[in-house]
């Protein structure tokens, strides 16, 4: 039943696989095996109790917390959050995780968590949900935008223990995926697989015996350390197309690749391999900027791919048998924080941000409920704006809300206002530029080119976005596209800046290509070839690689003289 209490809080129930920002070690939801097939439920609407705790606000580092739990629980929760994130940085050095991606955490007591909405269920049962289906839901959830992340948590205040909190696996993966320069796939796969199975509460972390390919394979190796072991050669393990392309996609190969990535990372982190941990991070730093080669590997580890394959093979029987206690890392002190009562603007902005983030999700999974979510987000944000609040962050949220709600006309002036107030939200500038670019090119034929003056309204916000964190690939891609349709050449200094950004997003196929086209436009044929050539080794898709090779061959040919 839909409550008509003071405000509505939306909470989406989803499949277990849905990414969670923070996860209680004892989940409140039965496992899929126990409850049968998992069905994503549509949003449920939660009423705020009439006599609820006041909202508390905490800012610590890049994270803002908005809590409705008691002050002591909030303190414990925030402290634990900071501790587990610090411990994570003992597992992976902070420079290899995405930085400067603001995090918003909303915390509510479990007592305020409602059951699923009857009307919603009724609606669903008429459609895709069987009458007999059991209904469970996962209240905790993480939603992501281009330049920020938000997490929603229910806490059982009567039984809360910080020791049961961990950084969820998918959140960890997101931190790796969003890191710039982008990390190679083998490293992300290896770290995530290891982290999935690690005893995360131990400090330093403990890795249990490795599950190698399958239970049978692992038991087989435990029984017979000289048993068979599928292993990929080093050059294939680290190749960008290791599991992409016609000859590389067999299920067995994909399984071996994934397991071997984990084996390699585990081997390198095992304190029994002196120097390997340092070598791993040295290698990771280099290959996030340069194509992986055996020479680079040997410079980091002191031996080549064949020796690595053999060492991993020798290590495997130990890995499936024994746990590994990782070496303790030197960790920075926890940031100090202060718990304050949240202002109306803070509550509206943070809750509004969360509700805004739900809109794209609902649009994708439950479009029939979209209007209610849009209305809810607008209502939340209006509580602050109607009081005359003009905080740039709030303006940015309202603008993005209108954009996500599908009203770009309403969004543009708000985006421009937030930009004019120098808000630090790169997406705001990107969206401003995108809307202007769409307006500029809407009725223009594809071959039409523009003057610098015409493009300036597009390029100016993009230039601002490029100076902010986190760096967004779409900002650069739109900049490239704009300059490619400019009748003038791009100024040399500007081109240099764009070329300098290439290492950040090498694994995007179109990134290096556009830079190369800009260089060609400026008559820098050799530099264009160099960018394409260095980017080639980062490309995974064989078709794209073939096209890129063709282009390089064309560049290598002498230019046609008219």
């Amino acid at each position, binding site marked *: 039943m839909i409550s008509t209490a003071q405000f509505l809080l939306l909470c989406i129930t989803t499949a277990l696989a849905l990414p969670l920002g923070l996860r209680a070690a004892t989940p409140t939801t039965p496992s899929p095996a126990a409850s049968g097939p998992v069905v994503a439920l549509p949003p449920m609407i939660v009423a705020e109790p009439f006599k609820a705790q006041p909202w508390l606000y905490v800012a610590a580092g890049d994270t803002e917390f908005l809590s409705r739990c008691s002050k002591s629980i909030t303190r414990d929760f925030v402290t634990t959050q900071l501790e587990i994130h610090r411990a994570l940085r003992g597992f992976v050095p902070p420079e290899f995780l995405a930085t400067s991606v603001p995090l918003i955490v909303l915390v509510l007591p479990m007592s305020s968590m409602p059951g699923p909405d009857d009307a919603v269920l009724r609606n669903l049962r008429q459609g895709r949900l069987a009458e007999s289906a059991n209904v469970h839901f996962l209240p905790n959830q993480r939603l992501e935008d281009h330049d920020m992340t938000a997490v929603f948590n229910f806490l059982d205040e009567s039984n809360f223990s910080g020791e049961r909190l961990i950084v969820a696996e998918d959140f960890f993966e997101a931190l790796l995926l969003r890191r710039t320069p982008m990390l190679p796939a083998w490293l992300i796969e290896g770290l995530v697989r290891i982290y999935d199975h690690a005893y995360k509460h131990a400090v330093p972390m403990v890795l249990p015996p490795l599950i190698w390919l399958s239970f049978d394979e692992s038991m087989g190796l435990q029984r017979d350390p000289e*048993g068979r072991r599928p292993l990929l*050669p080093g050059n294939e393990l680290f190749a960008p197309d290791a599991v992409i392309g016609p000859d590389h996609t067999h299920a*067995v190969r994909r399984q071996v690749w994934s397991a071997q990535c984990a084996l390699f990372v585990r081997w390198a982190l095992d304190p029994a391999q002196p120097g390997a941990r340092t070598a791993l991070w040295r290698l990771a730093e280099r290959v996030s900027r340069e194509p992986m080669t055996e020479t680079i590997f040997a410079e980091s580890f002191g031996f080549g791919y064949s020796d690595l394959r053999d060492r991993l*093979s020798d290590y495997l029987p130990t890995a499936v048998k024994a746990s590994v206690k990782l070496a303790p890392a030197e960790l920075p002190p926890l940031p100090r924080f202060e718990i304050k009562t949240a202002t109306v603007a803070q509550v509206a902005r943070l809750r509004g941000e969360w509700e805004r983030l739900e809109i794209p999700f609902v649009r994708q999974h439950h479009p029939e409920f979209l209007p209610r979510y849009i209305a809810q987000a607008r209502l939340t944000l209006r509580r602050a704006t109607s009081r005359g609040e003009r905080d740039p962050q709030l303006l940015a949220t309202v603008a993005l809300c209108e954009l996500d709600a599908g009203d770009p006309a309403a969004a543009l002036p708000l985006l421009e206002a937030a930009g004019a107030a120098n808000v630090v939200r790169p997406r705001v500038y990107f969206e401003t530029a995108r809307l202007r670019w769409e307006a500029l090119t809407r009725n223009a034929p594809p071959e039409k080119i523009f003057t610098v003056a015409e493009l300036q309204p597009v390029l100016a916000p993009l230039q601002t976005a490029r100076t902010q964190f986190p760096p967004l690939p779409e900002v650069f891609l739109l900049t490239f596209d704009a300059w490619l349709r400019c009748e003038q050449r791009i100024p040399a200094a500007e081109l240099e800046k764009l070329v300098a950004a290439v290492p950040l997003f090498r694994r995007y196929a179109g990134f290096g290509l556009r830079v190369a086209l800009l260089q060609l436009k400026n008559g820098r044929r050799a530099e264009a070839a160099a960018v394409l050539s260095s980017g080639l080794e980062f490309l995974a898709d064989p078709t794209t690689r073939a096209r890129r090779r063709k282009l390089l061959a064309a560049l290598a040919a002498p230019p046609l003289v008219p």
Partner: protein
Amino acid sequence: MSRRHLIFLLLLAGACLPFARGAPTPFEKFVTNLYRPWQAEQVALSPDGEHLAYTRHEAGNLVIEIMTVSRPAPKFKIIADDDQPVLFAKELRPAYLRFLAWASPTRLVFAPVPKADALTSITAVNRDGTAPMTLAAPDDFAVTVTFAPPGVGGRERLTQRSIHIVGFAPGHRETLLIHALGTAPMPYATDVPTTLVAIDVTTGKKTELAEETNYGRYLPHPGGNLHLLYSQPRYATTRIFELKKPGFWDRWITLDEAWGGPLTKAFKVTPENYHGERAFPLGFDVDPDLLYYASNVGRDTYGIYALDVRKKQRTPFAVEEPHVDLALPEPGDPSPLVFDPITSQLVGVRGVGVAPFTRWIDPEFATLQQDLEKKFPQRTVELLQWDDARRRLLLRVTGGIEPGRYHVFQRPENVMVEVLRSAPWLRNADLHRGTTFAFDTPGGAHLTGYLTFPSKPRINPPPLLIDFSDGVMGSAQPGFHRQAQVLAELGFIVARVNHRGMSGFGLAHRNAFRDGGDRVPVDDALAAINWIAGHHAIDRKRMATFGRGLGGYLALRALQLEPDVFRCAVAIDAPLAPALWLMPPLEDLGPGSQADAADYKILLSSRPPPPIDFAQEVRRAFLLGGSAKLTSVLSHVETLTKPVMLIVNRPEDDPIALQNAFLRAKLSRQGLDPELLQTANPFAADLPLERAKTFRRIGEFFNLNLYDYGVKVGPTKEIK
């Protein structure tokens, strides 16, 4: 003394007890582990690619293990043979297989290597151990020989015949072809023939296909017929090849110009041309008119060619390598020719250069080889076997730091499955890195070799050891070398140079020694030192030599010729006066020495002359027949001014042992007291524990004479 102190002392004493008992040191453990018999010395992939059979040594037995390739499953074990006790030693001498192959996806055939005093049988068994069957036993092929010297009544004796396994009949794996080998004709005795027999591996039924009385080596033919004979006369130094021409009264004819065309002129073998320019057949193609042969006539290295016997002309087929002989000078095993087991077509030619390689004629394998080599950089990849569908390939990967790993490449999945390791008790991280090198000397010689780098050098830069290994006439060595690993463990960069005089690198390479003498390998060692110093940091003030057999001789000669370069030398079983060593023995009773008492009188009255030792004649022709004479170490003892260690693994009355004892006496009189290590039990010298003891002594010798920091090191002399 308090109780606590007493307990502490007791614990300390307990901890020291193993050392007091003479427990092996870590170094000795390293050596014994290196020299343990490896597993997978024989390995066979089943025709369906699903199972792999391989040998390993376990608790004094030679065991065949059968594993499943595609999934983890328990292995099945079959005891194939037992290791043999060694006189006066605790260790056992490992048994080996000479044949291991799948007759079908479920049936395996194997045969142990015959022991010194007994012939062994051939056995077939299902992969689950059921239906075991002896396919052939020595008694199955015994023949009665009548021995009747003039004036003496004939005597009959039952003689067993050795079994040579030809292989499965082409296209018929259920039929195994063997030769029951005849013996060299004896005066006054009836001939012992060679018989070709087909054995059904399921029923054990034997069928005699052909029988020949000519003595020699019958070269295998895919069809199994006795088409080609490498005759080995007892009293002549010339060997010829004979051919059986069907339809011409079914008789043997000499494969000469008249019958094989002008090419076959080069097929005659004598001690003088053995290491010279000549040609010799290797075997027939599945087409019986096509004979493959090796030849270095008109070129430096042996290439592989084909002769159309019907047309008496060479075909366009040719496989050649610039610096490597593609065939060993002795025809037969191991044959460089690789045939597909299904089609019996020639698919490749194997060669042994600095590393083993295969020149694939089959284009599918040629492409595969290239792809597979990319998967294992700095390693040698050998494509050994494949299943009938060519979906699973068995590879051996060796070289550098790796003793050997076997992989099955599953082509549909594009996944490599490591199935076996030659020495799983050796960890990659504990071994010493190795590499190969190749360069041209200023004199134009193309030299290759192997370097092994110590993972924990005792001093930096590390000292260099020139290991002459087996010396002159030796052949290319494996990339992973146990002895090099041991010497690297002692802190050396170990250089094994394929110096001139060694076999397998062409005529000019080998004959340079015959014409230039012992100076040639020593010059090659000096050139290698210069090259190595240009590429790796070495301590040129601490360089030593090492060698075994003729390699030991070269190690000592290097010390005599270049005393300013080398600090000391270790020589094992070195013939110090090669000319004496190559002299024929004073007395040879010949084959009659095994006769029983009843025959003894007959022997005394009609003893045949001893047979020709062809191998010794070849050595004599090569080492003593050239323009340069081999200088005896003993004749220039006064030039031996640096420390030497002499190791003798032979009985005290052996000529080499006597020569070493003589050298020691002479050096002692000069005031240079060399260390002579006479192995207490020569029968066990090649077994791991004895080797560990010997290497420990060698380590002590180097500690004293090379690592002694108190010793004044002379000025560095540049080698030109």
